[in-house]
């Protein structure tokens, strides 16, 4: 028995020393957490904010990979995440529940626009316009070419690779019906699925009609032509095109009351579409590392981002 206990102590002691030699605890600092958006544009904005907060204000930001959507809003409201960047009003129905400015209960705070303005529309590949349909410019011309866009599931009608989920409130089918476009809006469930479908069709040089928006990395990979839709009009929606998406940052109110300097950056940043597009191109087309691209931009454009600081 004694040997057994002795042995246990020895084994325990050795295990403890292996543990102690193996690992060292990390030290604490002025910490915040933020999600990394899964699209490159958003990731660039977030990385910019993160780098500025870390380099200029001594924060330590924990960046968490998390698909955008309701989960991020939920986590910001509960204080598990401190802030998030570049929310697209059209694609976040949670804002109506949680952000005061959109009619919500104020559990999430609206910080201010990022400067990136997006717009959604329908697109066809350039090769289709060049080779088959040089006169395809607006939604009125779509019916002429509908058999090119039809699949076995749409029985003669054209197919639109539509807004992937009803949560985005695109009302694609209603729009098509109201505008008299003889197409079926097919929802693929996720954005990724829509891009995969477009990418596959593009590599086979097949015609497709795709719902997409700008700025977006898909335009760096595929050469797409925008189809004209009627200008946005809230009264006749959804028989019109989309409103401009003024993207914004949002945050946890308590955290921002505490970290006022960070709140200042999140409210006052102003990045233009073209500046963002340059960085997105470097990352998605040239395959550069996002950290390096952002560092290089910060080094070259001090005059722009210095203005965002308090």
């Amino acid at each position, binding site marked *: 028995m004694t040997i057994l206990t002795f042995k246990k102590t020895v084994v325990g002691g050795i295990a403890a020393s292996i543990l102690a*030699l193996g690992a060292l605890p990390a030290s604490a600092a002025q910490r915040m957490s933020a999600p990394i958006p*899964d699209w490159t544009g958003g990731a660039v904005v977030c990385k910019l904010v993160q780098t500025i907060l870390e380099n200029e204000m001594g924060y330590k930001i924990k960046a*968490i*990979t*998390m698909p955008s959507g*309701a*989960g991020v809003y939920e986590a910001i409201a509960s204080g598990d995440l401190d802030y998030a960047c570049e929310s697209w009003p059209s694609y976040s129905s949670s804002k109506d529940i949680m952000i005061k400015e959109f009619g919500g209960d104020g559990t999430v705070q609206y910080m201010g626009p990022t400067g990136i303005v997006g717009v959604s529309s329908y697109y066809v590949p350039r090769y289709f316009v060049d080779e088959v349909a040089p006169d395809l410019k607006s939604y009125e011309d779509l019916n002429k070419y509908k058999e090119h866009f039809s699949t076995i*599931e749409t029985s003669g009608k054209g197919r639109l690779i539509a807004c992937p989920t009803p949560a985005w409130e695109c009302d694609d089918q209603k729009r098509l019906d109201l505008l008299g476009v003889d197409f079926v809006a097919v929802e693929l469930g996720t954005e990724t*699925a829509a891009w995969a479908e477009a990418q*596959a069709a593009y590599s086979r040089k097949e015609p497709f009609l795709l719902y997409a928006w700008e700025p977006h990395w898909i335009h760096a990979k595929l050469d797409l032509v925008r189809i004209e839709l009627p200008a946005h009009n809230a009264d006749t929606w959804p028989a019109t095109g989309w409103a401009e998406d003024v993207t914004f940052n949002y945050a946890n109110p308590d955290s921002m009351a505490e970290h006022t300097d960070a709140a200042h950056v999140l409210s006052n940043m102003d990045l233009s579409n073209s500046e963002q597009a340059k960085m997105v191109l470097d990352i998605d087309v040239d395959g550069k590392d996002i950290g390096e691209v952002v560092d290089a931009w910060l080094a070259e454009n001090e005059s722009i981002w210095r203005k965002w600081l308090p």
Partner: protein
Amino acid sequence: MDTGKNRLLMWAAIVLGFFSSIILVRNAGDASVFPAFISDPFQFSEWINQGEDWLKKNYRWFTRMIAGWIETALYTVEDFLIESPWLLILMLFILPSIAYGGLPLGLLTLVGGLFWGGVGMWEPTMQTLALMGMAVILSVFFGILLGITSAQSDRFESILKPILDTMQTMPAFVYLLPAVFFFGIGGPPAIMATMIYALPPVIRLTNLGIRQIPAETIEAAHSFGANRLQTLVKVQLPLSLPSIMLGINQTIMMALGLVVLATFIGADGLGSEVWKAIYKLRVGWSLEGGLCIVFMAIIFDRLSLALGRPKPSALPANTTRFYLLPQSFDIYPIAKIIERPIGAGWNFIAMCGQGFTQIIAVTLGSIVNLFDSVRGQAFVIGIRRHAFLVSSIALLLSISIFDHFFGIGEFLESMQFSFREPVDNAVAWLTVNPAFIAFTKGLRALVYLYFLHPLDVFLTYLPWYIVVAVLSIVSWISVGRNFALVCFCLLMFIGACDLWEQAMLTLSSVLVSVLICFIIGIPLGILSTRSKRFDMILRPVLDAMQTLPSFVYLIPVLMFFGGNIVSAVIATVIYALPPVIRLTALGIGQIPVTYTEVSSSFGGTTSQTLIKVKLPMALPSIMLGLNQAVMMALAMQVVTPLIGGVGLGREVFNALNTSNTGEGLAAGIGIVLLAIILDRLSQAWTQTQRDALGV
């Protein structure tokens, strides 16, 4: 019901019913709608949302407290795994693998570990390992407790059973978002969600293991004066250990199934690698991440099974010859060329280990001897008996010390490899390959036009009361009156939640997927019993199919088959196929040789023997495969909306996007209810087959 006349009547009724329902469907202009006077007052999702709000207000402090504890524990484990030198961690896995599974398992673990580091995913792998390890440990702890409790009380067992069924079939997407509010983001909610899903097997198998112990054994324990607690700890638990270990094995497998979903609530690890990759349509990258999960699954599967077997009394190296490959391979000289050096090297290592232990034993023993000679003797023997343990600890310690002074550093650059590019290229090549695309387009048209679309229309257009009536009657005939009543209530619930059409679409997708599984699976199963070589190739493929996260192949399937319901069906087939193949092969393999010999001696040809003897004899096993395939296909219905699947799964997914717990739960319950109905029906049919064959 056993006379021929009755059987004829039944078939006549089925045929008549089928044609009259076709006429009904043809006359119906649109999908059948459940009456509003039932569904309008039944605001299930509203009630759930109100309940959730109440819980959020009153119990959040409590769940957050638990989350805090879990987080502390998790980060301790995670920091240890990540910040320790990789060599130390690798050895920590390899040594137990050798001790319990012999050298082949040790080599498997070595290959897996080198793969994790080799593709540059050591850190995410460790994060996932910490997360899953934590979830499994907690599941095993609570699972064994609950399993023991339900073995003591029949009443508790009967209450627990439907809850466990629900936990296993309820799509995880339903409780993922509420978990964020109650447990925060990252590890803790992911662990809680994993536990909900992975807890049932260990409870079930603990319960089963204890209940299977013969009453005589328990009585013997009682008659020797053991009280209830003593009987439990000293008799029941040790005797049910193999069963409990099997439960733990299943729990590990199920926990690994949730790895990718955990990324949706901010848990880092392999799941987020896979997600990042598929978001950018990088198939090769996601495959690397997926294979890391496959290796993890296979290693822990084998290791936990090995732990369940009785431990070999001798050191693994003490066996006279080392076999890496099956012994039937001995006829090939190449096998010996591979095995000999490994065996010799291994023997050398074992000798070093024993020599070292000897030195330690003698040195320490002589020190103890100075004080107490009797204990000194026992001490030497004790240490010698644990040569493996002693040398293992020495090895780990020396790695730690070496790292402390010199630093082992990162995983070696020269050992890294990547196959992202070739995989991406292969996918890109197949996407544009005219012959392959012609094939996929043809298959897509065939499945859609002749199976899926007609069945979709049939099930959704058929008036709801007919479906309810038919399913209830079938339940009555094949299971019993009580279940018919349950079935009726469940279907009415689906209708009242306004989910009738979605439920029928889900049913249709599941039925078509399972049908395709059978068309492909039964021939493959038969083939694998006929050719050993084919079986050897098939086995690892099936293992990988079952453990590879389905996210990995969603994107290639979509690129080849297009974004539509057929892609969803194909992905479902990939996921649900393995049990059909396995159980067909098992069923045929189990048939005694005498049966087939009798058949051939009566002049039956190979195909006659197969069709008239083997397949009917294997039917119970094949029906079990049907049951499993149906359940797996249903589980997949929550994943396929990611690439265009429709039905209840899409409702769950949409609810996730709008953080509407009530609607998600209603659709999730819809899936659970379909699962219960289909499960009971197919089980009853399997039983009928078994009874008919007298097995």
